[in-house]
């Protein structure tokens, strides 16, 4: 089961890399003229095509690109002629830093709130929290971000509205700088995660074996810890991993709002500059992380649920 899923995940990443590569090149219009503009002389276009290796057949270019990519050579940026790997490296680390800070705050909160909402289902607490999270998932990320800025950076000046970090800063200075973006992400991810956790646990609590345990007269705490929890583990782990995948992508907009030097910001900038090599490389990295986390979600839920290990 696990190996099969693993192979499928790797296959997906390979197909995605082909899609990113071929998709970008097979789209209508010549890439070189599209970037240089209609006024470019034929010589410049020819030289540019050579630089992009557009004169070679597609499959040769794909394997050359993939080979270089795996070796860590991500090509050269069209905008500033610097190696893409150099542009991406520290930004990717920054993105991971931001996403993991948000994850560390949100995962425990979401699981706890989801558990409480499921246990006290239908109470005022459950209703209040369900309405709040329903609103939170309907809000665009930037709405929450600007409200936080308005409250915590303009009305009361505690946190900076621009999260500029660099290597010279100490760890705590960095944390202080990214408080607002990580709060924004936390808010959204917690809402999603909490709702799904609640649904997963309600699902478990409705199963016959829980009813059986209750009818036997077991204590409520014992039913939850020994009967419900082990069975809820698999769906909850799945929910967490899926939402972490969402977090990695949701980071793009938040980075733009807070001008945070991350991979998402770079991707958006490169798209508007049509800096194709940077778009390809950062797009592939985002996709690979996303697919891997989805893969992890599936594998963990297979491992934590013995029934899934033995398919019929």
């Amino acid at each position: 089961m696990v190996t099969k899923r693993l192979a499928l995940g790797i296959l997906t990443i390979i197909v995605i890399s082909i899609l990113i590569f071929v998709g970008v090149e097979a789209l209508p219009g010549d890439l070189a003229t599209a970037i240089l503009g209609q006024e470019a002389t034929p010589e410049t276009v020819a030289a540019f095509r050579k630089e992009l290796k557009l004169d070679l057949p597609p499959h040769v270019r794909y394997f050359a690109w993939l080979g270089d990519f795996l070796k860590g050579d991500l090509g050269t940026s069209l905008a500033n002629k610097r190696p893409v790997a150099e542009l991406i490296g520290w930004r990717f680390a920054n993105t991971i830093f931001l996403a993991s800070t948000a994850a560390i705050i949100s995962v425990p909160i979401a699981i706890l709130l989801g558990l409480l909402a499921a246990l006290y289902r239908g109470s005022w607490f459950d209703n209040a929290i369900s309405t709040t999270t329903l609103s939170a998932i309907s809000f665009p990320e930037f709405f929450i971000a600007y409200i936080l800025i308005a409250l915590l950076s303009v009305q009361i000046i505690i946190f900076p509205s621009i999260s500029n970090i660099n290597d010279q800063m100490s760890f705590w200075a960095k944390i202080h700088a990214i408080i607002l973006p990580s709060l924004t992400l936390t808010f959204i991810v917690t809402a999603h995660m909490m709702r799904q956790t609640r649904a997963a646990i309600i699902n478990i609590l409705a199963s016959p074996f829980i009813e059986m345990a209750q009818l036997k007269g077991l204590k409520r705490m014992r039913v939850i810890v020994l009967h419900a929890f082990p069975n809820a583990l698999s769906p909850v782990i799945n929910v967490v991993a899926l939402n972490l995948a969402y977090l990695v992508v949701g980071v793009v907009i938040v980075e733009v709002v807070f001008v945070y030097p991350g991979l998402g910001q770079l991707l958006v900038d490169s798209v508007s500059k049509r800096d194709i090599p940077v778009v390809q490389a950062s797009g592939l990295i985002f996709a690979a992380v996303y697919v891997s986390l989805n893969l992890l979600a599936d594998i963990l839920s297979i491992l934590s649920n013995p029934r899934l290990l033995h398919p019929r």
Partner: protein
Amino acid sequence: MAFFRLLRQSPLSARIGLAMILINVFAAIFAPVIAPYTETEVVGDVWLPMSTDHLLGTDHLGRDMFTRLMYGARNTIAIAFITTLLSFFLGALIGFFAATLGGWTDLSLSRVVDILMAFPTLIFALIVLSVVGTSIGALILVIAVLDSTRVFRLSRAVAMDITVMEYVEAARLRGEGIWWIMRKEILPNALPPLVAEFGLRFCFVFLFIAALSFLGLGIQPPTADWGGMVRENAGAITFGIFIPLWPAGAIAFLTVGVNLIVDWFLKIASGLKD
């Protein structure tokens, strides 16, 4: 009439949601009548505060915020609506097709959709838009294709249950063509779950377009559009001028409204009484 009976039984949250949607639709339809100025008219100084002349103040170029918000409702909602319709047309068509034909067609279509769904949509859209450039046509097409994968999944699953029914079998034995079966047998029976899904997909598409416009890659200025308006006025917030919160709030207002309705639909569909 069934609609009104349903409405009378609806919970308060669903009624509030409906009212929120109606306000938006009203603003979108009657924008030229309600709005005191025209869409791109410069009427005063930059970032003026709220006043009787300018109900919500003015934007970064001195255009009336209230007017832009009304026209924004029109452009943003219309584009999201067209995109969702297109996405449903594509997704349902291919989904029914896969379910009715089965076999290799179904298998290969499903695998293609699996791969497209494994890809984070925002990243995919950004990559495609970096090559084809940003135009409203490209935007609608890219998002509709990406979103139709979700519609495909649902309509295929629903149609799968219908194709095993006796009446479809009878139609097949009668020698009806695949188009006839899809149109006359599957579509009418698959409609209710698809309609419920429409609200959810609309929300997603609407937020997606708003996000792309906010990133400067969606609907381009000077067309009034909520996501783009947040981006244009974002700088004001550090001066303590909260004008970007209006369009951002408008987006949130509409999506909360749609979600309240969808939530109610889902509760009816799942048969939960609490």
